[in-house]
């Protein structure tokens, strides 16, 4: 059963559609079992000025990759002090 572009459900687990890597059970947040990389928007060329010129808190670009094939499976624009959003949950 499809979960999204790169993930699917197999035997109640979330699994990579490309390489078959098993992340976790469907109730859990798959992002916690993915590989995570945090980047600043200025470093990846999407913002041209330092954030501190505009605001006191930091918003980061957080990327998640499949631990098996290192496909970029999801990204977040998120406050630096917030954990990964449990964004997809089939019930």
């Amino acid at each position: 059963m499809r979960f999204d572009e790169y993930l699917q459900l197999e035997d109640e687990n979330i699994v990579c559609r490309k390489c078959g890597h098993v992340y976790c059970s469907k109730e859990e947040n798959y992002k916690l079992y993915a590989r995570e990389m945090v980047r600043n928007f200025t470093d990846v060329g999407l913002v041209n000025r330092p954030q501190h010129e505009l605001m006191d808190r930091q918003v980061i670009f957080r990327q998640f990759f499949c631990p098996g094939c290192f496909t970029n499976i999801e990204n977040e624009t998120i406050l630096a002090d917030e954990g990964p959003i449990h964004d997809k949950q089939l019930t």
Partner: protein
Amino acid sequence: MPSWVYGADRFEAHDKPREELKIDPELKLHTDADPGLDPVTYEVLRHRIWQINDEQFMTISRVSGSSIATEINDFNVGITDEVGDIVIMGSGIVWHCNGDQAIKWVLENRSENPGIADGDLFLTNDPWIHANHQNDVTVLQPIFYNGELFCWSLAAVHQVDVGGINPGSFCFNAPDVFSEGNVFPAMKIVEGGELRKDMEDLYLRRSRTPELLALDLRAFIASANVTKRRILEMVERYGASTVKAVMRRTMDESEMLLRERIKELPDGIWRSEEYQEQSMAGDRGVYAVRLAIEKKDDTLHFDFSASDEQAGMINSARGGSRGGATAIVLATLASDIPWAVGGIKRALKFNFKPGTVPCADYPGGVSAGSISGVYMVCNATIVAMAKMLSSSDKWRHKVISGSEGSWAVMYFAGIDQYGNPAVNIVMDALAAGIGARSWKDGDDTGGILEAPIGQMANVEYYESYYPFIYLYRREETDSGGAGMFRGGCGGCLGLMLHDTDVPFAWQWFVYGMGFPTSNGLCGGWPTKAVEAMILRGSNIQAHLDRSELPADVTELRGEHLLFQTKGAYEQVRQNGDIFHCYYQGGAGYGDPIDRDPERVLRDILNRWVSEEFAYEVYGVVLEHDKESVDLEATERRREEIRSFRREHSRTPQLEPAGEAVT
């Protein structure tokens, strides 16, 4: 928390079902619907109502003198049944489907005193009743047949200025609604077919552009007149109960079609967050709208209750936010279902927490509600809906990644080349980029999802009416979010003053400058964040003397003056000052290194993507001729990117967080 202002709760409107409405019994409603409606008559009259809705829309555009209606289509119109449930909504700004709440409020609060009668028009812009912000003035018309209230027409048009502390009424210096534009909680501006002069004066007195508002008021009246005439012609010909049956069935069918679709999606919960920096001038906070969409059986539940507390002037009230989320459902999952919102809404449930950004308590600042609180709701809904749709093999083609992350508005005020005072708004951002689909690239400068027929005005319009010269208006390289399918590029513009010695005050309002707010899906990248600046005292004249037009502000020299997201006036003079801004594109879908290299080559040749960005993010390497892809080098580069990901990532469940990777 209830408002501290005495009696404010009386203006808190909700979308009540008809059986809960408390309407003066003296007001007779037409409820009779022919149970024997035949399918041919149904189709003929359903399309007739659609045509009337089109004429309703066009009349406003033709009669108005404001570029917002004549050029940009920043308005919308609808036709409802006798209790305000929308039978058809136009394709202007779709979030004005919240006008149903205003009709229900008028039925409950105006039916006894001053009464609702044939020939009346009610005007309102009260955000707590329905409006997105005070500029979105709405006129409601009850249409009577044989002494019974048969149906309503509604029209909402953004007005250039309705008062408040800042020209244009996006009041970034206002701590609350008392310093913002006037709030009119539904007043009878036309009574028995006569425009009430006292009400018109009250309406226009606080505006800096009363002449434009007066013209738009006539446009409202003209549109209401033609709508009423066409509806009554149809009723006379086919019978009131037949037309009412068509209205009922149109709503029922839209509800049925949407519920069938929802039922085919898997049950689940999808979440998203949308941020905005700065709640008013001088503020440095970051504020979140948080959404969880739960799909159960054939209903979608939208829960915004985890959003941040209201702040400054970026908030919206419940009605606007409900309209924003509904607009995204219409633009995505229901894009090919008739927009009979009265039926569509039955499959949508909303939960807002009072006192939050998308559900502000009175007297919180709401003057930027449309392009702040409501817009954040829209963006959060686009992303959460897309995540939901990506789980369905049947409906994933409806996925649209984050689109046109914010609606940048540029207000100007000064003396024009004809010696007249001028206040207006540049709305080029209506040509922002749309997000990628799950099967194709997003539309470059394609517009705004919530405004299907919104458009930027012609350059010639601004140059003939105002003392400006457009130096450039173009699509911005590398602004479409990277992905297997690329987001649509956003656009940029450069303006200079011309033919006036008077400095112009330039006001800027947006969000998404510190970080992008069109967010990608399934590995798709966000767009580039907004930029805005004045290049003070540039050398533009030397370029013009050589008959050269620059294509970008980087080709000019001058002092860079960068804007904050919330306003602050800057004086623009005819001494080389240039206003430059870039507005966001759409986000990408899928991992950028899964993109067909030939598509990246096409993007490079069209200047949608730079060669450097193609190498860094897409992992595409060109041959020396720069007109073809080096496939072997591309595969090596993509393997390098995978290795980089492997070496610089961690597993959150197992390893502590590290520093950002540069």
